[in-house]
């Protein structure tokens, strides 16, 4: 039982990491119906920015905040420069462009920072604390806390501010929003900025666990896809719940299902994606789509 609880707690921690990246995917999906395959690479690049700042002696949390701001600006810049000119292109074109973007950012990171895995600092100690009989590490609790704060901040922004309201309006119904004076195009850019910032949190949180290198997000993005699909790709809340469920499931499966072990954990995520698409394509929180034929 104690082991089970510990696995659940650390599962929630990795789940929070998945949730941040999944929320980034959902934000862009909501804004333009597009799955951004470059989301993981954008997060990886931001993590390198944080690494560089910290390596130059900057305080961890200051570097964290500056990285979020840089990632936010970078997301907006990518939307304005790369996505805007092809905004009206077929969705497949846009998807291919994000794939190209992923390759580009990956190569860019490789050429600037190199492919040698680096240890990324964590602000949380690896000491454990006893909670109700389960041993939880400060590392896990810290990741959970940071993810919770970031996700809560996004929730408050979207649901309780005017800019959040106009972002949601622009995402749901561009034409009607324009007639109400909403600058829809800028709202899309803002969505990219926000997604980029949230995604970078997942990179910064996961880097101390899996080492920092240009390919580090390529498995994490699969878990994030699983989380987003499970939650219903349109639902920010779904992304968070999905992230936690995927994190815990993968963690438990790795230990309790002997054939899964550490090697097949990614397969569990893929199994979740397939199962959701077959059994409940709209996910847990998605709304059924009605299509007129």
């Amino acid at each position, binding site marked *: 039982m104690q082991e089970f609880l510990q696995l659940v707690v650390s599962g929630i921690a990795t789940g929070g990491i998945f949730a941040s990246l999944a929320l980034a995917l959902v934000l862009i999906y909501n804004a333009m119906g597009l799955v951004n395959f470059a989301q993981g690479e954008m997060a990886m690049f931001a993590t390198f920015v944080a690494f560089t700042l910290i390596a130059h002696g900057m305080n961890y949390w200051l570097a964290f905040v500056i990285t979020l701001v840089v990632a936010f600006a970078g997301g907006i810049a990518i939307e304005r420069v790369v996505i805007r000119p092809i905004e009206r292109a077929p969705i497949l074109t846009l998807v291919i462009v994000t794939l190209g973007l992923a390759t580009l950012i990956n190569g860019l990171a490789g050429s600037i920072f190199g492919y040698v895995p680096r240890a990324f600092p964590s602000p949380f100690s690896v000491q454990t604390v006893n909670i109700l009989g389960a041993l939880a590490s400060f590392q896990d609790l810290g990741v959970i806390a940071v993810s919770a704060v970031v996700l809560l901040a996004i929730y408050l922004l979207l649901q309780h501010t005017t800019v959040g309201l106009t972002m949601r*309006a622009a995402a*749901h*119904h561009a*034409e*009607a929003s324009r*007639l*109400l*004076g909403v*600058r829809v195009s800028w709202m899309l850019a803002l969505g990219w900025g926000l997604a980029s910032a949230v995604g970078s949190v997942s990179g910064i949180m996961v880097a101390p666990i899996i080492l920092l290198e240009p390919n580090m997000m390529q498995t994490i993005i699969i878990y994030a896809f699983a989380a987003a699909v499970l939650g219903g790709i349109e639902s920010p809340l779904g992304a968070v719940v999905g992230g936690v469920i995927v994190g815990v499931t993968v963690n438990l499966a790795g230990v309790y299902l002997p054939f899964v072990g550490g090697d097949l954990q990614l397969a569990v995520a893929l199994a979740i994606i397939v199962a959701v698409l077959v059994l409940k394509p709209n996910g847990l929180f998605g709304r059924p789509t009605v299509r007129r034929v």
Partner: protein
Amino acid sequence: MALLELEDVRAGYGATSVLHGVSLSVPEGQIVSLLGANGAGKTTTLRSITGGVHWTGDIRFGGRSLRRMHTEDVVRLGIAHVPEGRGILTELTVDENLKLGSHLRRDGAAVRKDYDRVFEYFPVLRERRRLSASTLSGGEQQMLALARAFLMKPRLMLLDEPSLGLAPLIVRAIFEIIRTINGADKVAILLVEQNARLALDVSSEAYVLEVGRVAVKGSSSELQGNEAVRRSYLGY
């Protein structure tokens, strides 16, 4: 000088042209009806004004040309356009829809007063504030669209068939409020309607479109009194 002036406006969708040179004007504070059969170009005329369709010619609002302006910038000059289908954001709540109407205003105290007036005009919206706009009936959605347009505090409202698909009793209530908004706030209104009798009742001037051109124009009372016009264009 009129508040809104259209001069020889031509517009269309791709290769199909719909307007073949429409000129009309809406004086400050007046209600002007735009009548005509289905496909005459009434909706396209409204869409031209707010930049929803490509047009040539000239459109001026308050003396300023709207050429090559984006929809959101036209709207910010003080034009509230309630489009065909009402433009309700059904994924959002009633309250959120209303907030989108007032979100650009900085006159907080006046906004609060305007909310009070909106709920006085449409008490049902107050009851449903927290509900999803998708739960509203057609008439309630039309009320929400009007209320939201009112909260934009426009100098001009463009209303596209506010009576469409609504029960006669509700239509009467909605037109009563259109009249009130025009009277109390001096908001000019360009009213597109299939129901010519109703439109001529509330408007001071009217234009009748026929296949993308102005076929008849005049004061509303003149048109009401002219039997030939009524029979051949207005169908009553």
